[in-house]
């Protein structure tokens, strides 16, 4: 018996259980459903759940140990039949089928949330494991404090993390420098000044930016923004002649981040109670004084949260950096110089011929874990701030 046909049979048994359970419950009160503890279909569901649940646990357990085969298939179906009969026997007026189904639903919800949590834990654990391997082969002080990054696959590499951190922070900084004022001003205009009709058109248009795949932004950086910045800024100013640069990647990433900042800030600004605006206008403040002195301070914690979320997006971005800023790890102040980030190097170290025992490969996990720790801190900070803001008006 194959896995598919077993599952099919399980489905048929469950349906049968539903019908039988419902019928038996009704029969136990001579068809007068008002005397049942629960609505009739709950009895059906209770039997169906008892048919499927233990059997599918066995099914999964069997499958992970060995292929199901005939023996397994019959064992699963026998268990399903047993569950069906047992639950069917209980289907009478006094059985609290509604509460039993409720518990099963709750179990399902718990299962779903634990899958998400377990996955996170699994990711962190696997990274931790590989990172430990890396640090057993490579001195951690050299990783965290060395200023050169030059992996050589023959061994004896310099795997200093500082140039990558610098590139990450520099590019993210430029992106935020561009995205935060633009996004915030757009949000203020949309929520405080624009009429409802303009708002209904402009808001979705801005949000379209968030739906563009980052590789498309990367292409835009590579073929448009990069050459433009090189020909009109870098070369005339004598700051180099590289098309890939921190500035290119930063600007394009900034464009990508605008909808994050504007859309969240817009929501937060709209949540500031109208009564505060009225209070300020009623004292003879102008609209912009009201925005600057009452609305923005009231919304500030939420806006900071939005900015931090945008920052963690910027730090984790890869595609735009590869195509916009290049792949050269460098510690430099010139924004028209090519540099690179942690994420790009993680991809770089794991593509091509990889030997999972060499530090040159394992370093990717150390980089990933550091990055994860970094964005986790940012996200936690953002959540704390946003939550604090929520409490203010409740």
């Amino acid at each position, binding site marked *: 018996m194959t896995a598919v046909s077993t599952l099919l049979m399980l489905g048929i048994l469950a349906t049968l259980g539903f019908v039988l359970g419902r019928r038996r419950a009704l029969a136990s009160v001579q068809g007068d459903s008002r005397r049942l503890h629960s609505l009739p279909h709950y009895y059906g569901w209770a039997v169906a759940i008892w048919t499927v649940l233990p059997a599918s646990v066995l099914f999964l357990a069997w499958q992970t140990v060995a292929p199901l085969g005939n023996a397994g298939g019959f064992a699963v179906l026998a268990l399903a039949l047993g569950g069906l009969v047992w639950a069917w026997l209980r289907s009478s007026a006094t059985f609290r089928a509604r509460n039993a189904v409720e518990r099963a639903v709750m179990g399902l919800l718990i299962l779903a949330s634990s899958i998400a949590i377990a996955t996170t834990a699994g990711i962190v654990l696997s990274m931790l494991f590989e990172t430990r391997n890396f640090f057993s082969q490579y001195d951690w002080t050299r990783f965290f404090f060395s200023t050169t990054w030059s992996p050589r696959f023959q061994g004896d590499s310099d795997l200093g993390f500082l140039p990558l951190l610098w590139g990450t922070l520099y590019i993210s900084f430029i992106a935020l420098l561009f995205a935060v004022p633009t996004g915030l001003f757009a949000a203020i205009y949309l929520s405080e000044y624009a*009429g409802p009709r303009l708002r209904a058109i402009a808001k979705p248009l801005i949000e379209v930016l968030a739906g563009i795949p980052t590789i498309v932004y990367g292409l835009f950086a590579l073929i448009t923004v990069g050459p433009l910045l090189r020909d009109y800024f870098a070369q005339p100013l004598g700051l180099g002649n590289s098309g890939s640069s921190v500035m290119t990647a930063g600007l394009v990433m900034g464009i990508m981040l605008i909808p994050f900042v504007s859309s969240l800030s817009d929501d937060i600004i709209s949540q500031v*109670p109208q*009564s*505060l605006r*009225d*209070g*300020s*206008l*009623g*004292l*003879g*403040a*102008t609209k912009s*004084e009201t925005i600057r*002195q*009452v609305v923005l*301070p*009231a919304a500030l914690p939420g806006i900071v949260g939005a900015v931090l979320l945008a920052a963690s997006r910027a730090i984790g971005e890869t595609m735009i950096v590869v195509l916009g800023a290049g792949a050269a790890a460098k510690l430099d102040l010139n924004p028209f110089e090519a540099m690179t980030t942690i994420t790009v190097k993680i991809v770089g170290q794991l593509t091509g011929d990889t030997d999972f025992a060499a530090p040159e490969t394992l370093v990717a996990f150390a980089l990933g874990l550091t990055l994860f720790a970094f964005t986790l801190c940012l996200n936690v900070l953002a959540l704390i701030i946003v939550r604090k803001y929520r409490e*203010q008006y409740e």
Partner: protein
Amino acid sequence: MTTETTKMTARSVQVFYGDNHAIKDVDVDILDNTVTAFIGPSGCGKSTFLRCLNRMNDTIDICRVQGEILMQGENIYDPRVDPVQLRAKVGMVFQKPNPFPKSIYDNVAYGPKIHGLTRSKAELDEVVEKSLRRAALWAEVKDRLHAPGTGLSGGQQQRLCIARAIATNPEVLLMDEPCSALDPIATAQVEELIDELRTQFAVVIVTHSMQQAARVSQRTAFFHLGNLVEYGETGQIFTTPRDPRTESYITGRIG
């Protein structure tokens, strides 16, 4: 009673919200150093008319106001009048206390700061203290001026909002059901305060409580379905109303 000078004069005021004709041809004189109460069943346009007096209706897109409202001889709807400056002269206190999420001090200092009324920190301190004293709140908050205004009790918050309105040095004070969110003790405190404020301002108060109108006001205007039905001395309105609709309202038959 002090001499009765007219502070504001409204003549044939009409207000429309889109097609809804909310105020129909209202004439009222607001006297200085007098508490004028607007009463009437809810939805009759009391708040709408009150907001005409400081042009807060301008902030509602669909609202149109016709007619004229004179303040010391000048029509406040004249294009030369800046509504922002008008609102500094005609202060407003709202139904629900709405302190800014700032310190008590900064709440009161808000108006003086944006209008540049003071030249030094010392002078500003003085204005803040004076306004809080006039709002009968000073004793309760003088030790925590830098605590957030939102941390006060409802009654204290409403007195803070009154102090905030007084601090810009207005001539008229508009109050839209200022006690409806307060408990009886806080209400009594605010009512006492309103009586005291009349020595310096013309006060206009919207209220749904006839007892409150009788207690605090000298003049009463009764609105019904957007019309001003009757306007006169509070005592006369409550004892010998001229219009049958007023009589039914104050005896509790409509409303």
